[in-house]
C-alpha cells in the first residue's frame, strides 16, 4: 500500500520531506540566480546560513529529548558580546583562540543552568528557557551596552573566504557535525535520547537516566549556540548585544521544517540542517524573483507556513485517496 510506504519512509527518514523541499527551493533559486552554483556565491550564502544551522542542531537535539530551548538566541548574543569585547578589532589570533574556547564553556554553562532547572528542579522547559533568555540577554547587554568591538579582519576573512576544493568552509563543518551525530546516534546515549523524548516515564522504568539525558540536551544546545555565536561574530566582525534574538524562533521553525516534532522522541539533525538552509534559500528566492517590496514579508511567511503544513497536507491527501 502506497499510504503506509510514504508514512514508513517519512518515519524512518524524518528529513525526507525537508530534502524534497530543499531540492525544490535550490532548483528555484538556481534558476532565478544562475551564479548560485559558483563557489564564491555558494560560499557567500553558506557563511550567512551557518550560524542558524549550528543553533538549529542544538535546538533539534533538545526537541528530540522532549524539551525546547527559547534561550538559544540570547546565548548567541552573550557569546557575540564576549568575543567582540575581548578580542577587539585589532586583537591577535591567540587571544581569539582562547576567547573562543571560553565562549564554548560559557555556552555550555548557560545550557547547564537551563538543564539544571528543567531536569532536576523540574520546571517547564518553555517557561524556564524563556526566563533564562532574559538573564542571558541582560548579561549580553551588561558586557556590551552599545554595539561595538569586533574581531580582526584576518580572522573574519578565514571564516568568510575559506573555500577548499570548490566547497565552502561551512560544508566541512556540517559534514563533521553529521559524522559526530552519526556516531552519537549509535551509542547508548543516542538510544536513551529518543526514549526520554518519546516517553520519559517509560524510559525511566526501563532504567534510562532520564534526568541526566534531559540535562545533557540543554548543555549540547548551549554548546551549539556558542558555536553559532562564534560563527555570527566571524560573519559580522562586530558585536551587538541583540544579534542573536531572531535566531530563537528561526531555529525552532527550521527544526520543525526538518521533521522534528515538537512532541519529542523523533527526528534527527539532518532535517533541521536542511530546514535552516531552506529558510535562507526562501529569502534568496524572494529577492531574485523580484517580489514587490510590500509583499516580501508576506510571501516569506506564507512559504514558511506552507512548508510547515506540507507534511500534514500530504498525509491528508493520501488518507483521502487510501
Amino acid at each position, binding site marked *: 500500500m502506497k499510504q503506509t510506504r510514504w508514512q514508513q519512509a517519512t518515519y524512518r527518514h524524518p528529513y525526507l520531506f525537508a530534502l524534497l523541499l530543499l531540492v525544490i527551493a535550490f532548483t528555484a533559486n538556481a534558476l532565478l540566480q544562475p551564479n548560485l*552554483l559558483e563557489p564564491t556565491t*555558494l560560499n557567500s550564502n553558506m557563511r550567512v546560513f551557518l550560524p542558524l544551522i549550528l543553533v538549529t542542531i542544538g535546538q533539534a537535539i533538545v526537541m528530540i529529548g522532549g524539551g525546547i530551548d527559547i534561550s538559544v538566541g540570547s546565548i548567541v548574543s552573550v557569546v557575540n558580546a564576549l568575543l567582540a569585547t575581548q578580542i577587539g578589532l585589532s586583537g591577535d589570533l591567540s587571544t581569539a583562540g582562547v576567547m573562543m574556547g571560553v565562549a564554548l564553556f560559557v555556552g555550555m554553562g548557560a545550557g547547564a543552568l537551563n538543564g539544571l532547572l528543567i531536569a532536576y528542579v523540574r520546571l517547564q522547559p518553555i517557561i524556564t528557557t524563556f526566563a533564562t533568555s532574559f538573564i542571558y540577554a541582560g548579561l549580553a547587554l551588561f558586557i556590551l551596552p552599545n554595539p561595538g568591538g569586533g574581531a580582526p579582519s584576518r580572522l573574519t576573512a578565514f571564516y568568510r573566504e575559506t573555500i577548499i576544493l*570548490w566547497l565552502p568552509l561551512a560544508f566541512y563543518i556540517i559534514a563533521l557535525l553529521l559524522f559526530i551525530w*552519526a556516531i552519537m546516534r549509535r551509542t547508548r546515549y543516542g538510544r536513551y535520547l529518543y526514549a526520554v523524548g518519546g516517553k520519559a516515564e517509560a524510559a525511566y522504568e526501563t532504567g534510562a537516566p532520564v534526568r541526566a539525558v534531559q540535562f545533557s540536551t540543554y548543555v549540547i544546545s548551549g554548546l551549539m549556540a556558542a558555536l553559532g555565536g562564534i560563527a555570527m561574530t566571524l560573519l559580522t566582525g*562586530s558585536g551587538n548585544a541583540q544579534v542573536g534574538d531572531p535566531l530563537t524562533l528561526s531555529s525552532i521553525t527550521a527544526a520543525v521544517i526538518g521533521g522534528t516534532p515538537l512532541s519529542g522522541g523523533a527526528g534527527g539533525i539532518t532535517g533541521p540542517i536542511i530546514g535552516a538552509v531552506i529558510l535562507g534559500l526562501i529569502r534568496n528566492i524572494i529577492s531574485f524573483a523580484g517580489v514587490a517590496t510590500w509583499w516580501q514579508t508576506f510571501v516569506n511567511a506564507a512559504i514558511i507556513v506552507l512548508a510547515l503544513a506540507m507534511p500534514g497536507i500530504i498525509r491528508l491527501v493520501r488518507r483521502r485517496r487510501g
Partner: protein
Amino acid sequence: MTRRHFALIAIVLMSATLIAACGGAPSTTAPTTAPAQQPATAPAPEGRKFTIGISNPFISSEYRTQMIQSLIEVNKEYKDLGITNELVIESADTDVAGQIQQLQNLINKGVDAILVNPSDVNGLNDTLQEAINKGIIVISVDQELNTPGVYNVGIDQKEWAKISARWLAEKLGGQGNIVLIEGFPGHPANVARMEGVEEVLKEYPNIKVLGRETGKWDEATGQQVMSNFLASFPNLDGYWTQDGMAIGAMQAVMAANPQKWPVLVGEGRCQFLQLWDQRLKEDPNFETIAVANPPGVSPTGLRIAVNMLQGKQVDKSKLGGANGLSFIIPVPVIVTKENFQEVFTTVCKDKPATYLLDGIMTDEEVQQFFVK
C-alpha cells in the same frame, strides 16, 4: 542508522562537488565582477543604464515606508530619462545576518550603487567592503557609518536634537524642572541626539533634569513613560522627547490634563500637528515645536548616487563626518507657532496622519556637493 547518514553525507558532498564543478569552471577565468567595475574605473559609455539597489532591514515604521515610496518615485524620474533601471529593493524585517544576505544579493545582481540603511554600526563592514572592492558605490542613508569608503547621506542628528532642546530651554526662560524621554539607548542616532540635548542643557544650569527614561521610539511606550512621569512629578515644567514618542507623550498630557501644562516638544509628523491643532482650540496660547526628521534623505542619497555614477567629482570640501565622506543634509522643515497654520493646512491637508514632514533635494540642489 549510520549507513543512511553516511550515505547522506556522501550525497551532499557529491552533489555539492558536482554543482561546484559545473558552476566553478567559468569563474576561474571570467571574473564575475567585471560588469560592476565599469562605473568606477571608466566613465560610463553613452546609453548605459545604471542600477541602484536599496537594503532596508526594518519595515515596521512609517519612516521606512515613506523612505521606500519616495525612493521609487525619485528613481522613476531618472528611469524615465533613461538614466537608471528599475530600483532593486531588498526590504524586510531582518537581523544583521539577514541584511548581509540582502547586500550579497544586491552585489550578485550586479547593481552599480547600493543605498543601505544599516541595522548595525559595524556588522556590515566586511560585506560593504566587498561591494566597494567590486567598484560599487556604497551610500549609508539615514544613519552614519564609519566604514572607510562608505559615503553617508543624512541629517546631523546632534544638531537636529539641539534645535528643539534650545527652543525648550528658551521657552522655560532658562529655569525649571524637566524630564527627558529618549529612543533606544546605545543606538547611534539616539546617542548623538542625547549628546546634543546635554550640550544645550549645560548652557542652562537652572534647568533641572528630574528623570530620563527610554520610550523605545514607540508611541505607546512614550505615552506610558510620560504618564508615569506626570504621576511622579505633577508640577513638571517641561519635557524633551523626539521622534515617534512625542505623539504618545502629548496624548498622556492630554489625558492627565494637569492644571499647568508642561512646555513640550513635538515631532514632525502630521498626526502631531493634529494634536497641536486640537489643543489650540482649548488653549489658543499653546505652542510647541516640531522638527522634521526627513525620510527624504534616502532619495536625496539616490540622486547623489546617480550623479556619482555619471562620473561627476564629489567636492570633498563640502563633506563632513569622521571620514570626511558624509553629505550633511539640512533639516527641511521646523514647525513653530509662526508657521504652524501654514504647514498644517497645506502640507498635511491631503496627507495621511502618519505622514512625516519631509524634504527631498532636487537634482539641481544636489549639484552643490559636486565639483562644477
